[in-house]
């Protein structure tokens, strides 16, 4: 065991190192508590070494030679991952004279050149302890004060996040415990609820294939319903049509098992489609347009949540949305939220219309949902394009389900609802929360707040992919309070 020091972020950092073989001995001395699982010492040392060996091509430029007794690692977080010092030094912003100085003083020579003036130097093969030499040289170069950074170059062996092994037992979209995913990669619902859980005076409409308005977790929220497909008195879905019930629960579910993001708002349900049992929806554009007009004009909806789309554009629908945005809420405008679509291609109609909030999906790792994102759901990806406004959680969402064998599950709650269909109701719910806080805001201002207060994501420089980032309910309601 030994300690090494180096500079990072201008601060002196101290690191305890052990060789792989020392580590095996150290672990062998530990006795796990009863019932506690621990890393077996031989497995730990061997696993790290095997990881390095398995990536020989990448690792070979960082070591002249790697033997078990010469390989060090930092044992502080073996289970979560570890770091391995190499024989190289990463230097940022070095002039050629500094590189020459490193060669003349320490025998360090460049092995790789990175972007933006980064260079990787390796210790000479013939010195006794090349890793120690790398630390010493890095330190010396940093102290000369002529470079932006100079520190030992580490390999990091981290646990790779696997596909979602669990169903979403927790409502990660509201409060993400990081199992799986990243802690805090959520809409910050708990913080938002310290401001409001939604006002009974605010109405959010779900336009979909019907909503089980008798569902015990929804029935108290429903204030208006209509069927534009078969002309029934209620918006009850047919057959296996569970999609709209799932969307409604994301907004206003009233149970700890499937809590909506705005459980205090009221629901309006409009049935505008039915499925043909072959994986297709059937829409009549005129009926859909009538449903939109009914929702803002007769049902007095403040927000319209639309998790449907596809096919050619239609003015009759676009005009109905425009009327909602300009004439709804006595001229303040009804907020229109539309799902982007799940085909990982250009945004579907009507998400491509101006003036609507177009929503893509994010996952538990705060990534844009793609066919290759970490959630492992390779069968769908979020649509993208210039019209995309922001992302919201859309993977393995816990929400209400139609009863019995016809739904996504056999219970009142499903834990597997997916898609931009799940993302859009989260945004609709936040629009409802905003209007619960300040009713007089215009629909344009609500849209602006939601976009401005989204959390930036790693692909933030590509708004076509992620819009303005991932929905943040807390920041949005806070901003609403200020106007």
């Amino acid at each position: 065991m030994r300690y090494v020091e180096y500079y990072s972020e201008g601060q002196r950092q101290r690191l305890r190192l052990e060789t792989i073989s020392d580590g095996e001995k150290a672990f062998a001395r530990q006795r796990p508590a009863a019932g506690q699982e621990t890393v077996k010492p031989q497995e730990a040392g061997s696993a790290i070494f095997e990881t390095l060996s398995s990536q020989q091509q990448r690792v070979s430029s960082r070591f002249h030679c790697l033997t078990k007794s010469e390989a060090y690692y930092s044992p502080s977080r073996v289970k979560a991952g570890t770091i391995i010092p190499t024989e190289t030094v990463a230097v940022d912003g070095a002039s050629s004279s500094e590189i020459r100085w490193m060669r003349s003083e320490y025998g360090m020579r460049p092995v790789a050149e990175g972007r933006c003036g980064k260079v990787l130097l390796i210790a000479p093969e013939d010195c006794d302890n090349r890793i120690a030499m790398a630390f010493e040289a890095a330190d010396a170069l940093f102290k000369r004060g002529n470079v932006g950074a100079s520190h030992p170059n580490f390999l990091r062996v981290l646990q790779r996040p696997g596909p979602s092994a669990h169903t979403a037992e927790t409502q990660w979209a509201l409060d993400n415990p990081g199992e799986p995913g990243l802690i805090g990669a959520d809409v910050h619902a708990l913080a938002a609820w310290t401001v409001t859980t939604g006002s009974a005076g605010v109405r959010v409409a779900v336009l979909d294939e019907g909503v089980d308005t008798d569902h015990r977790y929804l029935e108290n929220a429903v204030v208006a319903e209509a069927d534009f497909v078969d002309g029934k008195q209620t918006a009850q879905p047919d057959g296996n049509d569970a999609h709209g019930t799932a969307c409604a629960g994301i907004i206003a579910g009233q149970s700890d098992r499937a809590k909506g993001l705005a459980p205090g708002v009221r629901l309006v349900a409009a049935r505008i489609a039915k499925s043909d049992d072959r994986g297709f929806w059937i829409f009549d554009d005129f009926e859909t347009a009538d449903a939109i007009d009914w929702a803002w004009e007769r049902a007095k909806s403040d927000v319209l949540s639309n998790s449907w789309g596809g096919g050619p554009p239609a003015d009759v629908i676009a005009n109905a949305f425009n009327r909602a945005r300009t004439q709804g809420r006595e001229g303040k405008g009804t907020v229109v939220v539309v799902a982007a679509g799940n085909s990982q291609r250009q945004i579907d109609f009507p998400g491509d219309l101006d003036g609507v909030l177009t929503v893509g999906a994010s996952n538990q790792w705060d990534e844009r949902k793609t066919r290759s994102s970490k959630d492992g759901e390779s069968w769908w990806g979020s649509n993208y394009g210039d019209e995309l406004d922001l992302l919201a959680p859309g993977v393995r969402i816990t929400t209400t389900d139609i009863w019995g064998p016809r739904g996504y599950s056999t219970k009142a709650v499903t834990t597997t609802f997916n898609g931009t269909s799940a993302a859009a109701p989260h945004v609709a719910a936040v629009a409802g929360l905003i209007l619960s806080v300040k009713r007089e805001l215009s629909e344009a201002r609500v849209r602006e707040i939601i976009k401005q207060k989204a959390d930036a994501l790693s692909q933030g420089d590509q708004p076509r992919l992620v819009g303005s980032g991932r929905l943040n309910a807390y920041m949005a309601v806070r901003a609403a309070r200020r106007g």
Partner: protein
Amino acid sequence: MAADFYYYAGGKRIPLELDPEHVAVDVGEVGSRGGRRPDPAAVEGAVELRSGLYLVERSSLPADERRRLDQEDALLPVYQYENALVVILPEVRVEIAEGSETEVHRFLEEADVPNQILTDKGTRLVVRPESGRGEDALRLANELQESVPVEMAQARFLRRVPKRDRSS
């Protein structure tokens, strides 16, 4: 080359492609004229789009039956647009630019496609081609767009799109 089938949306001309594989059968239309009512539900692969309206594969209807249904105006063409299928129903919604009501009414009276105004709410009309054909509704809507000041003239679309169920 201009597309054979098109319509207007957002002021732009949107091409439509005829789906060679499907037709829609309006059973209600046949019944209303006293013809022999076909039973598309008995046709293999038929999908009920709405009450009395079925999507069927063209090849599953015998040629003489197809001809008979066409003569009875009960056969509606099906169009493709990306991954959606569109059936055009015999109805047009019109939103008239302010002050142009007289001009639009005059146009409808003299239009090549004989039609009937079903609903008149000043600047908003619902019009039906007398033929009961979806193609005529499309033609009438396009002629309105191209000839008189309308905010919108759109034939009624019934669309079949992939459902957005992506559950695990």
